[in-house]
């Protein structure tokens, strides 16, 4: 069964190829169905592999399937090989599962778009790359997928490329990610030069056996983390993600919320033995960056008015939460939150897409309100997503967030406070969003009066093909927490599934105060979510308190502004300076020498029939003289 693993990435690739060749002929909606079926087939293959693995004893759940030799040069032996182990299969399950739902949704959402089939070509290509990323047996195969998802993300962000903002956002995403790739590449160079391999199995083994010096492990770990900061939008490289919302909403849900942006968390988990072999401060660096990003992005989300921007900053914040977990050694919790977040964030994004679709491409929440009346299913499922992200029990987000907080408390109480404040802000801004969009007065109705002549602008519920994915994701967001419940070790399903790959981290915190009082922490988390929700209701529903949405938060602390000003100011100026030096100084010297020779040659030889010929003759003459000299000298010795 595990041998079938190659089928998982192959099917979406085949779907992409079919749409590349026949996409235009297939058209709308058949091209979409082809892509959806390819992804669904991939999901099915993953399920088969999963059950195949379930039937094996834990220590045998590891199989490398080599497809062909990719880069064999001397000591370097890189195979195009896939690894079937609990982590990769879990990743493949949720990637293919969510992809299938989002493909289905996109058939409705993209209906009528001029480039319908191209959209699904890119989407399938993305799923293929993402699966290569998670199934790769070595760093280089993962990097192939890593860059592939980056390229697809670029295509899809600038999908509506006639819009300048979309074109700029796509480029920004690619280039910013490349900065992260610098880290991944140098990490690979370092791993190869110190261990002679890029294979996960071999690298992790030498990390566990202590063969890897802590200083090297630290360098590899942190360089990979640089890559993770790019792909998973952490400070200081998160800048591209809010702009990536220029892409069609299914793209935001799939790539920029559920799957691609979690690659960094996956990579750190995959390489967790390297982190363990590092100096302890390496983990602290990761936790601090994660915590800082979580808090930073949450404060920004509070003041956004674009329905997708709120969710974008929220995603940055939640990804920070995952790195907070990684930095606290809570890999299972990080993966747990990655999966639940994929459920509820995909749900929220798709819900917002349904709203945008129903609102005729309006994204400003200040022009929404009371939409629950006209879009009941969208509203209902969105509210479930809200409860899940806000940390209300028993919805999925509560359990994963709580597990992270438990580990963070045990490791660093300062960061625990950061985590709690973030949780409070999350509940606050998500409640704000739900109120602004679905409750209160309908701001769009005033609008339709003005535009009455242009036709009916009343928002409408989305078609069924879009609603089915919403309902399924709402269900998953409700019960997803059951993967890993804190009450008993027997309920740690996710933990025991991942045990062969990821060290059971509970042992580390077993004796701590946090562990003994985990129900108290649970209660604190509930309280914090409750406070956030109530505060938001007081502000936005009841208007008891004035809104606090300072400009500095709306502008994301002016960080993006500052960065673009550095790039377009001193950055561009220094680049221009170099280009100027090249033309005027480096080339100027060359031309000066040329002039000098020309004037010398001119005064030496009055009859100058042509510069080139004169110079060539001079050289040949000189050469002949030298030739003669060498031959004479050679003959004499």
């Amino acid at each position, binding site marked *: 069964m595990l041998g079938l693993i190659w089928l998982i990435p192959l099917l979406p690739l085949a779907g992409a190829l079919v749409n590349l060749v026949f996409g235009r002929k297939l058209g709308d909606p058949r091209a979409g169905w082809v892509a959806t079926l390819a992804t669904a087939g991939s999901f099915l293959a993953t399920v088969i592999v999963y059950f195949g693995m379930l039937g094996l004893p834990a220590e045998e759940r590891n199989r490398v399937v080599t497809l*062909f030799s*990719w*880069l*064999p*040069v*001397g*000591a*370097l032996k890189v195979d195009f090989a896939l690894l079937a182990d609990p982590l990769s299969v879990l990743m493949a399950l949720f990637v293919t599962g969510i992809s299938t739902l989002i493909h289905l949704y996109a058939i409705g959402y993209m209906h009528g778009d001029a480039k319908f089939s*191209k959209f699904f070509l890119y989407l399938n290509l993305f799923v293929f790359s993402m699966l290569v990323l998670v199934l790769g047996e070595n760093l*280089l195969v993962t*990097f*192939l997928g890593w*860059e*592939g998802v980056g*390229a697809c993300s670029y295509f899809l962000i*600038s999908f509506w*490329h*006639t819009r*300048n903002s*979309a*074109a*700029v956002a*796509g*480029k920004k995403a*690619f*280039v910013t990610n*490349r*900065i992260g*790739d*610098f880290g991944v*590449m*140098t990490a*690979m*160079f*370092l791993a*190869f*030069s110190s261990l002679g391999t890029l294979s996960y199995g071999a690298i992790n083994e030498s990390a566990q056996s202590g063969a890897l010096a802590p200083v090297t492990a630290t360098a590899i770990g942190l360089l990979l983390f640089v890559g993770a900061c790019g792909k998973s939008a952490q400070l200081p490289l998160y800048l591209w993600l809010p702009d990536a919302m220029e892409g069609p909403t299914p793209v935001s849900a799939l790539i920029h919320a559920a799957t691609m942006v979690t690659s960094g968390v996956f990579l750190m988990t995959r390489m967790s033995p390297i982190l363990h072999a590092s100096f302890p401060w390496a983990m602290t660096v990761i936790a601090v960056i994660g915590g800082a990003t979580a808090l930073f992005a949450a404060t920004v989300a509070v003041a956004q008015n674009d329905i997708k921007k709120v969710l974008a900053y929220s995603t940055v914040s939640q990804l920070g939460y995952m790195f907070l977990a990684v930095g606290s050694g809570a890999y299972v919790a990080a993966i747990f939150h990655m999966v639940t977040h994929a459920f509820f964030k995909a749900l929220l994004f798709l819900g917002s897409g349904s709203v945008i679709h129903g609102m005729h491409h309006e994204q400003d929440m200040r022009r929404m309100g009371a939409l629950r009346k006209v879009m009941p299913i969208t509203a209902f499922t969105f509210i479930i997503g809200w409860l899940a992200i806000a940390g209300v029990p028993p919805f999925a987000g509560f359990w994963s967030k709580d597990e992270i907080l438990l580990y963070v408390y045990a490791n660093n109480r300062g960061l625990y406070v950061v985590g709690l404040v973030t949780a409070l802000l999350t509940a606050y801004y998500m409640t704000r969003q739900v109120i602004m969009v679905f409750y209160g007065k309908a701001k769009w109705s005033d609008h339709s009066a003005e535009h009455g002549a242009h036709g009916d602008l009343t928002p409408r519920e989305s078609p069924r093909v879009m609603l089915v994915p919403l309902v399924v994701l709402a269900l998953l967001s409700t019960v997803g927490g059951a993967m890993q419940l804190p009450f008993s070790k027997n309920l740690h399903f996710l933990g025991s599934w991942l045990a062969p790959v990821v060290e059971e981290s509970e042992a580390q915190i077993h004796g701590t105060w946090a562990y003994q009082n985990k129900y108290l922490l649970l209660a604190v988390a509930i309280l914090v979510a409750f406070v956030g929700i109530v505060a938001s209701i007081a502000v936005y529903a009841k208007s008891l308190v004035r809104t606090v949405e300072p400009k500095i938060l709306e502008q994301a602390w002016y960080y993006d502004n500052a960065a673009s000003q550095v790039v377009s100011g001193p950055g*561009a100026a220094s*680049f*221009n300076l*170099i*280009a100027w030096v*090249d033309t005027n100084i*480096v080339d100027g010297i*060359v*031309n000066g020498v*040329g002039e000098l020779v020309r004037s010398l040659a001119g005064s030496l030889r009055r009859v100058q029939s042509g*510069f*080139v010929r004169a*110079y060539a003759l001079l*050289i040949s003459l*000189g*050469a002949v003289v*030298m*030739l003669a000299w*060498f*031959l004479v*000298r*050679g003959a004499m*010795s």
Partner: protein
Amino acid sequence: MVFGAGSNVVIAASAEVLNFPILTALVILPLIGSLVVALLGHSRPEWVKLSALISSVTTGALSLWLLGAFRAGEAGFQFVSQHTWISQWGISWHLGVDGISLFLVVLTGILFPLVIVGIDVHNNQTSYFAWMLLLQAGVMGSFLSLDLFLFFVMFEIVLVPMYFLIGGWGYEQRVYAATKFFLYTMAGSAFMLVGIIATVALARRDLGIVTFDLIKIAEGAKFSTNTARWLFVSFGIAFAVKVPLFPFHTWLPDAHTQAPTGGSVILAGVLLKMGTYGFLRFGVYLFPQAAMWARPVLFTLAVIGVIYGAIAATMQRDLKRLVAYSSIAHLGFIVLGIFAVSSQAVTGAVIQMVNHGISTGALFLLVGMIYERRHTRQIDELRGIQHVAPIFAGVFTVVMLSSIGLPGLNGFVGEFLILLGSFGPARWWTVVATIGVVLSALYLLWAYQRVFHGEPDEANSSFKEMTPREGLLMSVFVAIIVFSGVYPKPILDRIEPSVAALIKHVEGQTK
């Protein structure tokens, strides 16, 4: 003798001379073609293109046959052909191919017919094709020569047709650019000529005979440390100009921008590789110790080229000039790899020579097609082309991503192997060079955004979609780009043994 295994192969391979002198044919065929075209031009102008085609396609087919017949896994020279030329000076017509030159020969073989078939010239076809074919002969000869004199002759022959191609069929400032190209490279070659003569004269003491034979000198001569350094520098200057290595690069943007499309494709595709190939074959192989001595300087210049070329590319307003500067950056990677002298880095450098030829050649073709349609190369006069010509834009995207070094496409293989293999011997240089990987995304994507994205204005809204002929031409490039990115093993298997033998030679000499 360290290279003993290789020498045996040479002897075994020379038996093939009896069959068919394929390497000689690869050099002579285009030469004959060139003469035929020149002669037919007056009497039968309608046969000119056909003869050029036949000559170049046959050469291309022969080079592919060579690729098929080449024995993978062998380090030494194959299909060796040796005939005495000027016996009293020990000069011979000595040709051979190994893993290092094989793919450059094949690239030369296929790039010329593609250019001849794919690009129309509007004036004076006869001379154009005659020069093109002479150029092919010269480039082939340069990559195949195992005799220093023959190599020098071929290396110099190349200048003449290229000078006339730029000067005769180029753009506004073609004469300035052609003259600069000619003089600059000629000046560089002068140093090499002195170096060659000195090498032969000095090697005579160890060998007892006057010979220009590369292998005999490399295996038998023992130069004193200082002498070797001087000789290496004299060769090195010629190659540094040819590559071109910073700060000797300024002839390149002018030559590239002013050359006709076919000239640019050939210039980027194979001509520049004569410099990097020369470094490897005549620099590192002949003077290993001196090459190792010069490493810090060469690493530094190479890495400056990578960063500097990328930065200068970012700020260009002319699309063709942008691609020209990107070449400087890419060739910096190759020089870094060559002097890192590790199996991965040198193999990466060799494969990158070929891949850069494919990607940059394709980019020049595409820019040429844009110019044909819009009569401008200025980035700010182009806009929104993807909207009107999606297939054109799609092909451009694939080629661009290959140039950026996206894994799964050809450009990545060489770049990655070079950096991976250089990290050990040249750690900090490699780290800086890796920044170039970030920058390559910046200048190409920014240019793409400005040229292809956005709403097309009036001048660009009638931009013609790719024609079937253009599509066919580009599909050859795209096929190579994808294949050698996904499955480079057959290529690597042919390059690596020769590289390993070279490295062993270097290690043996520098112990």
